[in-house]
C-alpha cells in the first residue's frame, strides 16, 4: 500500500468548507489546505494562511526595471557613446521617460505573473491531491478540504471522525 497523503473531505458549498476549516484549525491541525473552483473570501484566515508578500517583490522588481531602463539610456548616451543630437544635453532625461516607464511596467508585470507561478510551484506534472475521488469537480462546483498526513497531530481515525462531523458530502483517504 502506498503512503497516505492525507484525508480529503468534499463539500457542496463555500460556507461548509469554511466552517470545516475552522473546526480543523480549532483542533490544532496546521497542515490543511482547501481546493475550490474560485477564490473564497476569508478562507485564508480560516486555514491560518498568511497574506502573500507578492506585492513587495513586484515593487522591488519594478524599481529594478526603472533603474535598468533609465540606466541603460543614460549610460548609452552619456558614458558609452556621447553624441551631440540637435544640441540637446547628453542626459536629456525627459526623452528617456517613455522607455523608463515601459521597462518599469514590463519588469513588474512579468514578476507578478511568473513569480506567482513560481511560488505556486507551477507548472507541476503530478500532485497527490488529484487522486481524490471526484476531484475533477474541484474546478467546477465542489469544495475540498485536505488534512495532510504530514501534520504533527495527524491520526487517521481521529481526523476522519472530525471531518465526518463537519457535514461533508464525502470523506476519502488519498494516497501519495
Amino acid at each position, binding site marked *: 500500500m502506498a503512503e497516505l497523503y492525507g484525508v480529503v473531505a468534499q463539500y457542496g458549498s*463555500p*460556507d461548509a468548507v469554511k466552517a470545516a476549516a475552522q473546526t480543523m484549525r480549532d483542533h490544532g491541525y496546521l497542515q490543511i*489546505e*482547501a*481546493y*475550490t*473552483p*474560485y*477564490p*473564497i473570501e476569508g*478562507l*485564508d484566515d480560516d*486555514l491560518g*494562511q498568511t*497574506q*502573500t508578500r*507578492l*506585492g513587495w517583490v*513586484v515593487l522591488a522588481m519594478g524599481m529594478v526595471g526603472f533603474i535598468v531602463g533609465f540606466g*541603460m*539610456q543614460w549610460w*548609452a*548616451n552619456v558614458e*558609452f*557613446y556621447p553624441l551631440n*543630437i540637435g544640441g540637446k544635453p547628453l542626459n*536629456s532625461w525627459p*526623452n*528617456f521617460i*517613455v*522607455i523608463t*516607464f*515601459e*521597462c518599469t*511596467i*514590463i519588469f513588474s*508585470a*512579468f514578476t*507578478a*505573473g511568473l*513569480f*506567482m*507561478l513560481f*511560488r*505556486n510551484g*507551477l*507548472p*507541476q*506534472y*503530478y*500532485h497527490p*491531491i*488529484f487522486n481524490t475521488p471526484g*476531484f*475533477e*469537480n*474541484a*474546478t*467546477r*462546483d465542489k469544495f475540498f478540504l485536505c488534512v495532510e498526513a504530514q501534520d504533527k497531530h495527524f491520526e487517521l481515525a481521529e481526523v476522519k471522525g472530525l471531518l465526518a462531523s463537519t457535514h461533508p458530502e464525502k470523506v476519502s483517504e488519498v494516497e501519495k
Partner: protein
Amino acid sequence: MALLGLKRLRRLPEGETDKVIGNHGGEQSYGSIDDVVNAPLYTHPLKTPTWWFVGFGIAFFFLMVYLYSVVYLIVKGTGIWGNNIPTAWAMPIINFVWWIGIGHAGTLISAALLLFRQEWRTSINRFAEAMTLFAVVCAGLYPILHLGRPWVFYWLAPYPNTYGLFPQFRSPLDWDLFAISTYASVSLLFWYIGLIPDLATVRDRHPYKLGKIFYGILCLGWRGSNKHWQRYMRAYLLLAALSFPLVLSVHSTISFDFAVSQVPGWNNTIMPPYFVAGAVFAGFAMVLILAIPLRKAFKLENFITMKHLDNSAKLMLATGLFVIYGYFVEIFSAWYSGSELERYMIYNRMFGKEYGWAFWALIFCNGIAIQPLWWKRVRYNPIALFIISIIVSVGMWLERFVIVAVTLTREFLPSSWGIYKPTFWDWSLYIGSLGLFSTLFFLFIRFLPSIATSEMKETLHHIEHHGDPALRLKDNKEAL
C-alpha cells in the same frame, strides 16, 4: 449592483429579465456556467458547426492573402506600395495605428473595469482581451514591414553588437518599439494568467483524452488550492493595476510619433489624449462587432447580455464625444496658432480637392452616426449597434488616413506636394490583416473558453452571499 444591471431591471422591456447573467432558465448554478460556456470546446472536431468551418475558411483565405502580400513585399521591396515622398507614412502606419487602437478597449475592459469593480465586465473581458492580443499582433507587424528591410528590425532594440551602437533613445520611433513590445507581452501574460483556472476546468471535464492532455499542459497543473488562489488573485490585481497605465501610455507614445515632429497638423499637444480616446472608441466598436455575433452563435445571451451591449455602447458614445472635441481643438489650435502652415493644413484637410471627402466622411462616421446612441432603444437593438460599430470602425480608419496621409501630401515644400494613391498591395495587406485577426479569433472561440468561468462563479457567489436578498433575480421578477 451595477453588476447585473439589477438597479435598472425595472425599466427593462418585458422578457429582458431572463437575459441577465446568472438567471439561466430559473436558477443558475456553478456547473451550468461551465457547461454553457465550454460546450464548444467539448465538441468532437468533426462535429464543429458548419458556420465555424465557413467562417474560419474565409478568414484563412485572407490570411493566405496576407502571407502572399508579405512575401511579395519582401521579395520586391516597398516600391509595390503607393508610399512615396512626401507621403512616406501611408497605409502601413494608418493600419498600424488603427489596429493598435482597436486593442485598447480589451485592456481597458479587463484592467480598468476590474479596478473600478465594475463586475459586469466579467462576461466580456476574456474575449475582449483576446481581441486586444490579436489586434496587437496585426498592428505590430506593420511598422516592421514598413521598415523596408524587415529582417533587420531587431536593430531597433538595444542589444550588444559588434558595431558598438545603441538605438536612438530620444526618438519616438524607438519609444514605439518599447511601448508596443511591452504592451503585447503584458497583454499576453494577463490573458494567459486569467485563463489558467478556466483551462483547468476544461481539463477536468473534457470528454476526449487528447483534449485532457492538451488543456492539462496549458493549465500547468492548476489545482485550485487556496494558497494558490491567494497569490493568483494578488498577481491578477497587480497585473490589472499595471496594465491600466500601460494602456494609456501605449497610444500616447504612438501619438508622440506625430506630436514630437514638426509637421503642421501633427505638432499638437492634444494628440495623446485625443489618440487614447480614439483608440478606446474604435476598440469598443470592435468589441460590439465581435460580441453581437458571438453571443448569438454560441447562445451566450445569458452571459453577454443586453446590459453589456448597452454599457459598451455608452462608453463608445462617451469616447466618441471626446474624439469630436479633439477635432474641434485641432481646428481651433490651427486657427489660433496664427501659423500660415497650420491654417493651410486644416483648410486642405476640409476643403482640399483630393481628400476633402475623407474629412467629411469621418465627421459623418465618428460624429453623426453615433448620435442615435443617446436613445436607449438604439442601445438595446443589437442590429443597430452592429451597424453603428461598423461605421465607427470605418470612421476611425478614415481619421488615421486624414491625419497620416492627407497631412503629408501638403508638407512644407510646395514643390514636393503630391497625391497618395494606395495600390493593390496596400489593400491586400490591409484586407489580409483582417484575415489574420479573424483566423486567430475563430481559433480562440473554438479552442479556449471565451468567458472567464471562474470569475463568473465568484461573481455569482458574491450575489448569492453578499448581495441584498431583495435584489435576487427571482424577487426582481416578482417585483416586475
